[in-house]
């Protein structure tokens, strides 16, 4: 599904050059649930942004579902994102003037799906995350956990090949975090490939594989015994 070879990325901050990723190599297969762990500044978010085509690497190869991702223009990146990727962010990134249903339906609008159809589909995904009753509420009327579930429903509605979650539980308390992880595990059980960036040990152990990142290099890549989040809910 994902193959990355010798990925480098550096940022220029004034006169300083900050080398964030110093040659990353890894592969992820279909249906994997991978946690990328590391303290802040380890380069994990940068890696996720590159995987999500929100940012570009300086050098290295990136292949997604057999398609080499390179020479991205904004238009091309937009097309790939719509086709391949679903995003879940720490800060939810819902559009605040659209209700839950419209937020979930938005990626389908960019797939040029007719209105009626995309609303039906959005409703189906909202139901899956248990928020059918909240479909017509604005984000400001939802709790943090509910917002994140709407964001997950939105990411899944486009039926992406890869779900990228950037600190999905970072803004949530632990009970809500486990609920969200439970949802992510269920989505993974259904066969979806998911990458979760986190710095929380317990969240990482709810995945099937943990990649440890420190100072821009992978220091450890291990398969783990998955802890089911439902045990805590």
């Amino acid at each position: 599904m994902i193959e990355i070879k010798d990925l480098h990325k550096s940022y220029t901050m004034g006169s300083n050059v900050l080398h964030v990723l110093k040659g990353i190599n890894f592969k992820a297969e279909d249906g994997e649930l991978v946690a990328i762990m590391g303290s802040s500044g380890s380069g994990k978010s940068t890696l996720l942004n590159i995987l999500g085509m929100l940012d570009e690497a300086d050098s290295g190869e990136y292949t997604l579902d057999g398609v080499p991702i390179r020479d991205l223009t904004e238009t091309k990146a937009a097309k790939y994102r719509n086709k391949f990727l679903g995003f879940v962010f720490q800060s939810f990134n819902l559009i605040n003037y659209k209700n839950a249903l419209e937020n979930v339906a938005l990626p389908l609008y960019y797939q040029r799906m007719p209105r009626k159809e995309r609303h039906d589909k959005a409703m189906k995904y909202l139901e899956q995350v248990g928020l059918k009753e909240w479909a017509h509420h604005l984000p400001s009327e939802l709790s943090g956990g509910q917002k994140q579930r709407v964001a997950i429903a939105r990411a899944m509605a486009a039926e992406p090949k890869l779900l990228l979650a950037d600190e999905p539980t970072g803004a949530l308390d632990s009970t809500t975090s486990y609920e969200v992880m439970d949802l992510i595990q269920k989505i993974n059980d259904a066969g979806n490939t998911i990458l979760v960036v986190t710095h929380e040990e317990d969240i990482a152990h709810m995945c099937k594989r943990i990649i440890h990142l420190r100072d821009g290099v992978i220091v450890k890549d291990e398969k783990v015994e998955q802890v089911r989040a439902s045990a805590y809910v």
Partner: protein
Amino acid sequence: MFDIERWQEIFDTIRKNKLRTFLTGLSVASGIFILVILLGFGQGMQNGIAKEFASDASNRIWVWTQVTTKEYKGLNPGRPIALKNENYQYVTQQFARQLEDRSPVFRVRDVVVNYKKETLGYSVQGIGSDYQFIENQFLSQGRYINPKDEQNTAKVVLVSNKIKKEVFPEGVDPLGEYLDISGIKFQIIGIYGDQGGEREEDRIFIPVTTAQKVFNGANRVDNLSFTLQPAASFDEAVDASMKFTEDLKTYLREAHTVAPDDPSAINVFNTLEEARRYYGLTGNIRLFFWFVGICTIIAGVVGVSNIMLIVVKERTREIGIRKALGARPWGVVGMILHEAIFITAISGFTGLILSMGLLELIGPHVEVDYIVNPSVNFNVALSTVFLLIIAGAVAGFFPAWRAANIHTIDALRDE
């Protein structure tokens, strides 16, 4: 443009951002509104000035005299100049082909006008039969003084609508009634009105010959008044009347032994020359209103641009989200511009309709000196609306384009 999905998306956005939409719309609508009202009043002013000139024939030439101010050919300054019948006759013969209307004016002084027992405070003037056209008077009743009256030194008199209203009781027909002017009975033969309004209706007219004969005028006249034959164009008319004015002055100065450079003994007032100055003035006023209007539009454009900048800034994060979900940069730019143009157009036309409605409604009732029926050229107003729409679109394009092209990750970090 005709993508129904996109329209729905835009209407969603507008519906859910009412305040932002309202403020954008308000600035556009008020800009257009102010411009149209300003242009309307500029036009109203021009109409008003044109109307002021309707009070007299627009090519009127008027001669009056004062005392000499310069010594000339042994004659002392301070000598009063009195026009004579001969002067009038000479001019009418000499310039017969150029003149359209002509009339001497003799002001009757120190007389008392009575109607029955009532004493009236109106001035009495002796005039010729052409005077009606020179003053742009109209007849409401009866007839004007005619050449026969002049020949016969008839004791007939013209009064105005104003005098009729002020002097004669309701139901009394002034025609055929008699006015007593210093003990002599004059029969009322007509009632005139003046285009210039009531302030020009304070005079009682009698034939000039009668005035001279009865009131001890001998062969003196106070003024000469003329209008010239119409010319092909305004400028030609002005030139012709200027030349006539000069000829007239030269002749009168010679006839009365007045120094050729005496500035005030012989005076000729030429309406056309004044008219040219006034038309120049209205042109300048219009120019001024245009200037103010264009400044208003510029202010409007700046306002719209400003709002567009803020709107785009405010939506940077939303743009990031949309791009993360697969929106193409052009799609985002298109959507923002589409919305902006839609709002500007709707509010621009609202301002246009409101202001033109207001002008239509109150315009005909505006009765102030120098402002008559303010109105505006629809095409001009329409083009300003389009100008504002285009300006809004251009002003919105650059920030939208920049926002759509910053890295999605930066857009998402934008707080």
